[in-house]
């Protein structure tokens, strides 16, 4: 069903609650009155034929005199999309919370509260999520003034080498350690019965700087509250101060294990805003680097999963294979990790025959190594015992919490953006969408999430073989104006990254810089389900669970 038909339905049903249909936007949006939001949301989710069960993204936008919240909805069953919008006055922005309808909204609303100060009524745990508790102000507001100092640390940086006390261990005066205020414990713990434990933010198996606050009864967890934001680098604010093309290197750092997807999504969003057609060869180049990157990322995911449950050797095997991919990437774009390869309208460099040859040769070798890896670890009894039947996620939960990518597919939901909302040249390539098969336990357990990634690597190899052979001759970049100034509009574009749906919601106001850019990442949403899954797990299972989600800290915190 398209947006106009849904609008008709909604106007019939809620004549008072619907304000406007914005048809001239790239993704037509329906504006809803705040008072009617809950009813409309409930209707959209429950009504036969609409069934919007998946909240892709929830973004707040500061419109100066008003604050706006944008909901990107999707229906996995029906395959259609819808955008709804709600506005509130800037002075006292109160908007009803939809976290009771879509669980995904829980963390996204906390983020909008943290960065924009929007007050979501009815949210049961509305507190800061990315910034520290004692932070002042909401950074994504247009009139935000940064703090001159935080806990004695100032942002100024003297220029020149003289300012750096090289080799001396540093003589500059430094503020003393401020011992931390009591951490937020889970709220409902009965006094004295449970043990309170902090896991992170520095912990080898939390994959970067993530913190988990555990309530344990012996080895058994009664509650786990993830605490994120230790790597919040303010990328969305930085994007507002950069030109569209200048933001490309920053997107690399959103997900350093899958920089190509981040590049790709950003390029696609701006191309849609500008209505640019990308040359065929460039699209092939993009798919090739995407799939190479997907393999590289899944190598770390599966390898570190083995490492986290106690098998170190597989990880070193995968690091060795990754080095070859790094070499290929270096031949393609000159960088090993943060590629900055794509440009708006194409890619920066062509893929040479030498690269094609080297990649094809490596793929043949990789097939053999995959078999070896399967023998080494996938069939290992200890490994299976650690993962099978652990933290089973049902398909309904996975959709409700907005999981995406391999995490969603492992629960049996057959949804892949590459196939279901095709972009680039994926429709021309032949590949299977991998879903969980309950190989060793029940559908949606940690082992399924592991094996999904293994099988996806095999599919990526398939795609690569086809794409490398089918790559046509031609240009690698479309004609793009020097200064990119899209007309006022807004767009949501998504790619299937290694960690699931990577979406960019970009609002343009006609100037050379984006008015608002919101990054929807797979890791952020998958972190929010951990609290729901944790009761009853053992502490060691939590490690397996985190590893099976393949979260990357900057993707959570941005």
């Amino acid at each position, binding site marked *: 069903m398209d947006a106009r038909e849904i609008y008709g339905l909604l106007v019939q049903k809620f004549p008072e609650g619907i304000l406007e249909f914005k048809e001239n936007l790239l993704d037509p949006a329906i504006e809803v009155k705040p008072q009617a939001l809950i009813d409309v949301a409930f209707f959209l989710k429950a009504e036969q034929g609409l069934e919007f069960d998946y909240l892709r993204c929830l973004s707040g936008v500061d419109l100066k005199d008003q604050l706006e919240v944008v909901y990107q909805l999707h229906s996995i069953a029906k395959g259609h999309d819808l955008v709804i919008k709600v506005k509130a006055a800037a002075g006292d922005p109160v908007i009803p919370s939809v976290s009771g309808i879509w669980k995904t909204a829980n963390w996204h609303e906390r983020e909008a509260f943290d960065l924009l100060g929007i007050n979501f009524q009815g949210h049961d745990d509305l507190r800061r999520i990315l910034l520290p508790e004692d932070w002042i102000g909401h950074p994504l507001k247009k009139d935000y003034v940064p703090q001159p100092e935080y806990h004695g640390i100032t942002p100024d940086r003297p220029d020149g080498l003289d300012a750096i006390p090289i080799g001396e261990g*540093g003589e500059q005066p430094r503020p003393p350690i401020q011992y931390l205020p009591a951490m937020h414990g889970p709220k409902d713990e009965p006094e004295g019965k449970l043990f309170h434990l902090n896991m992170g933010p520095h912990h080898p198996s939390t994959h970067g700087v993530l913190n988990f606050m555990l309530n344990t009864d012996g080895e058994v967890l009664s509650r786990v509250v993830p605490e994120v934001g*230790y790597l919040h680098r303010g990328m969305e604010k930085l994007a507002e101060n950069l030109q569209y093309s200048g933001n490309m290197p920053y997107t690399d750092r959103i997900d350093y294990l899958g920089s190509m997807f981040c590049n790709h999504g950003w390029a696609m969003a701006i191309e849609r805003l500008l209505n640019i057609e990308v040359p065929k060869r460039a699209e092939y180049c993009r798919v090739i680097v995407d799939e190479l990157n997907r393999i590289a990322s899944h190598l770390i995911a599966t390898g570190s999963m083995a490492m986290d449950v106690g098998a170190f050797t597989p990880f070193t095997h995968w690091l060795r294979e990754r080095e070859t991919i790094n070499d290929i990437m270096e031949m393609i774009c000159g960088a090993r990790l943060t590629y900055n390869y794509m440009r708006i309208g194409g890619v920066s460099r062509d893929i040479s025959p030498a690269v094609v040859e080297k990649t094809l040769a490596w793929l043949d070798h990789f097939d053999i190594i995959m078999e070896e890896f399967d023998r080494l670890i996938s069939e290992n009894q200890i490994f299976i015992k650690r993962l099978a039947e652990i933290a089973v996620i049902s398909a309904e939960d996975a959709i409700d919490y907005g999981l995406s990518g391999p995490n969603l597919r492992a629960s049996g939901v057959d949804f892949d953006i590459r196939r279901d909302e095709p972009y680039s040249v994926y429709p021309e390539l032949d590949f299977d969408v991998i879903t969980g098969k309950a190989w060793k336990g029940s559908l949606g357990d940690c082992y399924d999430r592991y094996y999904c990634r293994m099988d996806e690597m095999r599919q990526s190899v398939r795609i690569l073989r086809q794409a490398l052979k089918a790559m046509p001759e031609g240009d690698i970049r479309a004609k793009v104006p020097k200064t990119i100034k899209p007309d006022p509009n807004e767009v949501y574009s998504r790619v299937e990254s290694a960690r699931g749906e990577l979406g960019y919601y970009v609002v343009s106001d006609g100037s050379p810089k984006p008015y608002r850019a919101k990054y929807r990442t797979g890791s952020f949403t998958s972190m929010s389900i951990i609290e729901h899954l944790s009761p009853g797990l053992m502490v060691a299972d939590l490690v397996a669970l985190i590893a099976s989600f393949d979260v990357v800290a900057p993707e959570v915190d941005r």
Partner: protein
Amino acid sequence: MSEDGDKKISSSPKYIIPPNIIPGAAVATTTDHFINWFRYSSIWYMLFATACCGIELMQTGGPRTDLDRFGSVFRTSPRQSDLLLVAGTITYKMADRVRLLYAQMPLPKYVIAMGSCATCGGLFTQSYSVVNGVDKIIPVDMYLPGCPPRPEALNHAIIKLQEWMRREHWADKIRKA
């Protein structure tokens, strides 16, 4: 034999080959040389990977570059490490934790700021939540530029640090800190 070995240590700045020890023979050297030999041959670094640079840190520990060759292996606890490799961006929210980690390391301790973020804030200098250089919160011994630095660069940094350690009077290092 003993004099010979001693001379070898002080005269060659680059490599120290421990004297061929004949069973039953005694070796005389200075305490500094002796202790430094242990220290620089086992620089255990803390696996403190906050962001992208952490991946290059892992690759450096991996099979190709293989930091183990230099006696450097990663430790996950600050109490067992000699070297804090700050690999990645440090935010204000993380800053106090970094100080705590540093305070927990035993003396003598060293810090390498890996990557432009840890060196000076790098790409994120303009951000509202990023500490512009980890030397604002803990003393830094070595700055390693790059975004991210290549494994070879990190390797070089470790070798450089070994050279420093070789020349140091370890007790001074403790007293100064």
